[in-house]
């Protein structure tokens, strides 16, 4: 309840702040000259939040269902023991759980608690925002069955699996996660150490329970989505896209600019392919790919959500590794492939 209250407080304060400014402006007969950045900020913030919130809700729903309907032992039994196979399976798990980068975080947290290994978990977290039917179809709609689609899928899978394998070095996965992620209560009041059976009761009561878990988790993660969206909007309001785009020439610089743009824009992976079309012809194919591959893995709101699940150092590595791999792959594409 406290989480819900906190979330509502943040949203309420934000709405009250905006309303107050607009009221004052209206009361003064439009006499208050609001900076244009304010309008840019509110537009971008609402755009990011409204776009991402439904997907976060879907992710938390999936998380609730997993919690209520899947036993830890069952999940552990079907997970590959081999690290590479685990990472590969994690990379492809998006086809089973088609969630974007907002929804994947609560679901991954839940799966970690159910015994998913770090290689598989990190690979799932990184790959599923791209390797799922919805995003593949939206990329197809934007680019057709061309090199951009295939390279996006291949690079996302390769980078996610590689990152997952690196994290597999950690023999005690609990050290990657925040303690609160491990103690996430499946049922309010129950201890995590208790080997709970699958939630008992009728189908209706189990569904209600799943929804309750999803609701709590949604509000818990939602506040970080709001903060992340505000941060992304604020940065975009201060650093206009045009400034970045003006820098975007050359095989390396264009990649760096597009990656920075992907991080700042924080666009949901289900629609980013259409947004990136605007850059085709102005930016190199490699840089457009860097936008499409890195954005779903690392952006401002994602980082804030990651921080609710992983320790800071883990998040740092989860940012550094994909960034370096994406730079290498897309600069190589720029300089060696004539696409």
């Amino acid at each position, binding site marked *: 309840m406290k989480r819900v209250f906190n979330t509502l407080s943040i949203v309420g304060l934000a709405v009250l702040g905006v309303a107050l400014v607009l009221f004052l402006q209206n009361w003064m007969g439009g006499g208050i000259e609001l900076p244009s950045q304010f309008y840019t900020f509110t537009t971008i913030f609402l755009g990011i939040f409204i776009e991402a919130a439904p997907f976060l809700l879907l992710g938390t729903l999936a998380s609730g269902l997993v919690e209520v309907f899947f036993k830890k032992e069952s999940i552990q039994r079907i997970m590959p023991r081999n690290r590479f196979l685990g990472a590969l399976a994690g990379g492809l798990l998006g086809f089973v759980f088609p969630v974007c980068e907002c929804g994947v975080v609560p679901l991954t947290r839940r799966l970690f608690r159910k015994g998913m290994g770090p290689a598989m978990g990190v690979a799932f977290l990184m790959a599923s925002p791209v390797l799922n039917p919805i995003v593949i179809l939206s990329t197809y709609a934007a680019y057709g069955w061309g090199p951009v689609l295939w390279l996006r899928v291949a690079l996302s899978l390769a980078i996610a699996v590689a990152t997952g394998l690196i*994290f597999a070095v950690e023999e005690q996965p609990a050290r990657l996660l925040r303690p609160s992620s491990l103690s996430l209560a499946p049922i309010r009041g129950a201890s995590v150490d208790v080997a709970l059976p699958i939630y008992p009761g009728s189908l209706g009561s189990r569904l209600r329970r799943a929804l309750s878990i999803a609701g709590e988790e949604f509000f818990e993660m939602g506040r970080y989505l709001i903060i992340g969206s505000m941060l992304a909007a604020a940065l975009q309001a201060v650093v206009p896209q045009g400034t970045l785009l003006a820098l975007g020439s050359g095989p390396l610089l264009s990649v760096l600019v597009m990656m920075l743009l992907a991080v700042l824009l924080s666009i949901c992976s289900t629609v980013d392919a259409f947004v990136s079309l605007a850059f085709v012809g102005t930016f190199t194919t490699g840089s457009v790919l860097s936008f499409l591959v890195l954005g779903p893995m690392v952006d401002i709101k994602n980082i804030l959500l990651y921080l609710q699940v992983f320790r800071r150092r883990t998040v740092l590595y989860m940012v550094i590794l994909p960034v370096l791999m994406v730079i290498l792959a897309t600069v190589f594409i720029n*300089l060696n492939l*004539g696409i």
Partner: protein
Amino acid sequence: MSSWRALDRTVAGVALVLLAALALVLWRGDRVSVTIVRTAPAAGSQAAATAPIVIEFGQRMNAASVEQNFSIEPAVEGKFVWSDNTVYFLPSQPLEVGAQYTVTLARGTQGQIAHELLEDRVFSFEVRAPGVAFLRLEPSGYSLWAMPALDAEPVQLSPGDGVFDFTVASDGESLIFSVVNEEAGIDLWTVSREGGDARLLLDCGVDRCFGPSQRAGRIAYTRVLAPMTPAEPYGPPRVWLYDPKSGSTVRLHADSQKIGFGPSWSPDGQRLAYFDGGNGRLVVLDMRTGDEVHIPTMAGVVGSWAPSGEYMLFFDTLLIDGRPVNQVYRANFATQDVLPFFDPQPLDADYSGPVVSPNGEWVALKVRDLENLASEQLWILPADGAYAMVAVEESGSLYSKYLWRSDSQALLYHRLTLGSAESAPSVWLWERSRNASRLLAEEANQPLWLP
């Protein structure tokens, strides 16, 4: 903490390897060259003296880099015009017939966003002598014919008759002609200079499409929309554009109130002139800026562009003592003024149809004695109109469609002799060196050079 150190070490090691690999990739540099899809004239080919030199790239290019790295031997002055990924080098003077030219695009030419040309691209071509294309009247209408060289036998290019008018592409490789279709509309067709491969370019259905003009890959034409019912008259003419690459066609002006006909591209293909019959004026539209220049005239035809595009010669009809008299004017686009070509205006004769030579030094125009309008003379004058000489004069003959050869040393013209059994139209060539004319084709109309 040992496992943390293992992960730290692994991440640090992987990061170092990735950075080293990135350094290697950057050190190796760009291994992908800018691609050149097409060059024209084709290497080793015979090309028109008026042909633009075309390089089509596979990507957007850095225009300044392309223009800096472009060279042609023997050196030729000219202007670069861009259309998407294609650059057109338009020589300011026609190329010399018989000469061989070599075009080089040097390595290092940069794309707009990435890559550069890794090796010089060199191609050569030879400039051919021009031929002539014309219409020949058949029992059921006109057909399109061409003489690939001045002494060659005429070859029919259109698959049948019903040809309304035509134009020749500036590279001389193809012709666009309008043909009456079965619905009484007029379609646009195209055919190569050799013939035998005519194909429908634009199906206009019941509309009438004619008067094509082509320059730097762009085609403009006049289109008259068919009425809703047969009882109604045809609508006013409007200028339309046709994109040969996409096959799409659009009205020049979105505003349907803007009417006009007879489009004519400027030599650099950046401006389009047409006659606005509704307002009695020539309109010169800058395609880059959308700016328009309006030149009042009642003549109903577009004038002749100077090769530089700086001015246009045209004629207007004045009423003198209740009698229409044509006079020639010069519209200067730089100074935005219109002045009589002759100063003072010689109102004792009718002057019309001025045509500027390709080198910009000469003007040909038609002169009629006001007392004997059935007899005409073709005059040749320097561009400043300082003096004049009669080039062609035959009693009872009318002249039209006269056009300078690319070397500005000869004039192609259409002659119609009246008042005799030999009144059939014919095409002639006046040569400055001999100051004499010779017959090129009998039963021929509307001649155009086939460069």
